[in-house]
């Protein structure tokens, strides 16, 4: 024991004295709270500012506000009242009245809870004057959303009442307040909501407001939310949603020179207005429980599909970069590619070019599996071990924007999957896998998975001849600087000169005898690539084959590109059938602001794939019934 003997004792005394002094100040000196002691109730009134409006890149209004009124209740202040009169005024049953009071009391007898949401205009008018008769009830003005353009639900998101957990995490909010829950509303909640104002209002014994407490000295003024300008082009977005009706899939369109997302479509979707107002909860449940269509599942961002033949472009770039091929290297295709001695070790190919040596250009525009299987194999086998080969391949792909999050300002996303040596070492514990074991990756099947936004980003990268900007959806926030990250070009590991042959091949997909030759446009130079991804499900060890998925990536014009697009249509068949013409329609719409091919347009709009989806689902249910 030593000189610190009295430290704790002295600290205790000092701290207690300090507290008593502070109490003295708060309770006896500071006049701020003086009037509170006269049993005059001071109530807090919140003033919710206008939530920020949301516009598209051309200042078309996408999300606006509408005012709504809730009835709030503080159970501890409710005195005996004429329940009949109250229920008549509010058009609720006595049961509802009792239930709501009970709910509010459980939450807190002293804090306000929402008693009745979103009064109709008539009810509001009638109640406003007489509500003061009913002690403990008051009307709270709120801001709800309104969507003049009935599309882009997945982009915009929605707002909903805050839940218990969020109430603790974010002390700013009160019970009953609305908060962005998905999409832009969620991502930019802070900017959009502004800061609510607080008013302290004095009430007399009869619960009538008699004025501002202390003349508003401790009130806080509301600060309105900031308006947002998105990168979305509404005309394109709406058009894409129209083309995608009765189909499922995702479309992402990006402006390559900036990474701005021009359209982000998931199908099927819904009218954002159904998630506003009294019906919101019910409608949301309907959407949420629709496990067949899954309208809340944003396919453009979250669906991980095998990219199919579009992936060949990546393999081509890697092949050139690794110098295992040149533009003049040729391979033969024998309606397929044999990769092993086994009878089944044969990869089929439908390019139709037999007995002619196929070079890079032809390989791309005829989408020859054999060509790319060969290139892929050469890349991997260039290195002493498959591990080194595959990991080199893997690193190229990561730099091309695959296999990982892109870092965009969208609140959701998936990584996709690019396998590397670690991955296969887990799958094949004996570690004796080689290029031929994993040959399906060459044509975008196998273990490769990507999301439509990754594909669109990759297409933008090609359009730029070697780099991309992080895809983002926010163009401008009033009075704020946007994340500078979006202005930085991300270069891939592929040299610039290797892109031209690929681009030429993509151009020839339309020009020459390519896979999309029937979708060619006379006045726009489009570069694209068809993709067809196998759609099969392995159930109880057996492989069940369904219609292929239809994929297409494209950018236009060939020089000084303005738009890069990736389309994925579930069960759409050959890429050339559905996805390619759709891509050309969208590009045409964006670049020319009109469509010159009404017949084609109508065909695409009318194409109804629902029977195919139902059939697939039926078969899946029969084989592996979900409980």
């Amino acid at each position: 024991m030593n000189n610190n003997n009295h430290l704790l004792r002295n600290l205790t005394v000092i701290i207690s004295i300090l507290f008593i002094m502070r109490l003295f100040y708060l309770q006896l000196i500071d006049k701020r709270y003086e009037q509170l002691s006269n049993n005059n109730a001071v109530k807090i009134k919140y003033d919710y500012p206008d939530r920020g409006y949301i516009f598209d890149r051309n200042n078309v209004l996408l999300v606006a506000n509408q005012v709504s009124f809730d009835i709030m209740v503080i159970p501890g202040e409710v005195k005996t009242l004429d329940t009949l009169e109250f229920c008549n005024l509010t058009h609720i049953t006595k049961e509802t009245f009792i239930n709501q009071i009970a709910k509010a009391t459980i939450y807190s007898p002293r804090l306000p809870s929402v008693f009745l949401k979103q009064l109709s205009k008539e009810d509001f008018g009638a109640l406003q004057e007489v509500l003061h008769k009913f002690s403990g009830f008051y009307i709270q003005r709120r801001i709800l959303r309104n969507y003049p353009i009935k599309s882009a639900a997945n982009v915009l998101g929605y707002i909903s009442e805050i839940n218990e957990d969020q109430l603790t995490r974010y002390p700013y909010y009160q019970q009953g307040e609305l908060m962005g829950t998905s999409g832009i509303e969620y991502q930019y909640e802070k900017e959009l909501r502004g800061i609510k104002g607080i008013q302290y209002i004095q009430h007399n014994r009869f619960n009538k407001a008699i004025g501002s407490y202390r003349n508003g000295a401790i009130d806080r003024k509301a600060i309105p939310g900031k308006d947002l300008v998105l990168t979305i082009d509404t005309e394109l977005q709406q058009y894409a949603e129209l083309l995608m009706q009765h189909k499922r899939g995702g479309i992402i369109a990006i402006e390559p020179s900036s990474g701005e997302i021009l359209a982000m479509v998931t199908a099927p979707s819904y009218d954002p207005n159904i998630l506003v107002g009294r019906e919101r909860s019910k409608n949301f449940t309907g959407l949420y429980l629709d496990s067949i269509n899954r309208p809340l599942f944003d396919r453009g961002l979250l669906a991980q599909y095998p990219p199919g033949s579009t992936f060949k472009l990546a393999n081509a770039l890697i092949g050139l970069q690794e110098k295992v091929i040149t533009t003049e290297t040729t391979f033969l295709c024998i309606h397929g590619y044999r990769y092993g001695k086994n009878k089944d070790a044969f990869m089929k190919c439908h390019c139709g070019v037999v007995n002619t040596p196929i070079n890079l250009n032809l390989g791309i525009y005829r989408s020859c599996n054999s060509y790319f299987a060969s290139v892929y194999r050469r890349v991997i086998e260039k290195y002493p071990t498959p591990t080194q080969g595959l990991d080199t391949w893997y690193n190229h792909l990561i730099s091309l924007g695959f296999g990982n999050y892109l870092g965009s300002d969208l609140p959701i996303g998936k990584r996709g999957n690019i396998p590397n040596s670690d991955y296969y070492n887990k799958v094949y514990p004996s570690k004796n896998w080689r290029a031929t074991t994993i040959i399906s990756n060459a044509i975008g099947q196998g273990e490769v998975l990507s999301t439509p936004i990754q594909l669109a980003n990759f297409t933008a990268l090609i359009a730029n001849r070697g780099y991309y900007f992080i895809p983002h959806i926010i163009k401008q926030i009033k009075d704020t600087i946007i994340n500078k990250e979006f202005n930085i070009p991300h270069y891939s590991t592929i040299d610039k000169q290797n892109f031209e042959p690929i681009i030429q091949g993509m151009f020839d997909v339309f020009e020459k005898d390519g896979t999309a030759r029937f979708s060619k446009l006379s006045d726009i130079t489009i570069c694209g690539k068809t993709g067809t991804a196998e759609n099969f499900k392995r159930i109880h060890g057996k492989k069940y084959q369904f219609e292929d998925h239809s994929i297409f990536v494209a950018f236009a014009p060939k020089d000084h590109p303005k738009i890069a697009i990736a389309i994925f249509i579930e069960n759409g068949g050959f890429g050339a059938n559905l996805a390619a013409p759709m891509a050309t329609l969208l590009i045409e719409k964006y670049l020319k602001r009109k469509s010159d091919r009404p017949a084609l347009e109508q065909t695409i709009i009318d194409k109804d794939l629902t029977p195919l989806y139902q059939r697939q689902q039926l078969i899946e249910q029969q084989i592996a019934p979900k409980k």
Partner: protein
Amino acid sequence: MRQRNSNIFKGLDWPLVVFYFLLVSLGWFSIYSASMNETHFEILDFSVKYGTQLLWILMSLILIIFTLFLDAKFYERFASLIYAFSILSLLGLFVFGKTISGATSWYVFSGASLQPSEFAKVATALALAKLLSDKNYNLKLVKNQIKAFFIIILPALIIIPQPDPGSALVFFSLIFVLYHEGLPKFFIGLGISIITLFFLALLINKLLLVAILTILTLLFYFIYKSKKTSLSSFLILLIVAVSYVYTVDYVFNHVFEQRHRDRINIIIGKVTDFQGIGYNTHQSEIAIGSGRFLGKGYLQGTQTQGNFVPQQHTDYIFSIVGEEFGFVGSTLVVLFFMGFILRILYVANRQKIKFSRVYGYSIATLFLIHFTINIGMVLGMIPTIGIPLPFFSYGGSSLWGFTLMLFIFIRLDANKFYEW
């Protein structure tokens, strides 16, 4: 043996026992006021908070009997085991714990929930006492210092990521006990440096800070160059400081939640409080201030403005005392706590056995830190740090934790008439 038990009641320090029941009762009355309403006022109503609190108080009586019944030596013997068990229970939260109100701090089973961090406080006090009471345990030796710090810091480190930095803070107060038992004064300087560096790491650009630290290190090296200290030891110090800076940054941005960041940012002035983070405190001040001299009267505080104090039955419970009993009542409660803590110190001082004495200081420190931070926060003198007010704040785990803390000490003290 039989004689000893019946004499236990002679040996109990009655002032402490009286303080305990006094504080627990006052606490319960406050909770009654905070949670009762027109429809619920029966005392034994378990659907309301004051009802459950009463249940816990009754159960803690059982806990007291149990604690007093055990042999005093039990606590010393099993201190390490109890500590180890409590560390395990904290670690177990990461696997089995439930998240309530944003923190994974709870075990929940058949309707009851338990917060192991409250019990970890007792366990750590015991373990610390055990460590320091070893014969000739010299806190001037580095290896002993490390052991002592380790015991204190380990539970804190496990608690921070729940996230619950408030509770973790409590453990650091035990460093006071170390000073008392002979920790060299150098550590005061070290403690201040750590806290300063914490705030600097949040205020200044990291690279700039690293540059400043490097220059300072070199400066100190040249000034204090001697045979004993080599450049490498200064460099090691520099590396430690820099890693600390980056760790602070990481923990602040990735472990702390937004509400923690907001609160800290407000103290250090980085952010002006437009968000209403200080809202709770403001409401609490209004409630207390409105109590004036005599208060509004028991149960009368509910009808007015004051009912907007959030968390009033837990962290802000003292605001009810302030509002309903005014300056007179609040000062009395403050004095009661003061008296309580001073009594613990007095009793600790007269302990002949080092284990009991160190344990006594430890719990006095723990009670003091809870008292200081909670009431300081409610009065708006320090930022919002969610720590319970002992015996007042609603909650079974904290009530039992503090009850155990106190009565183990009372038990140890009761042995004063017998040699071990």
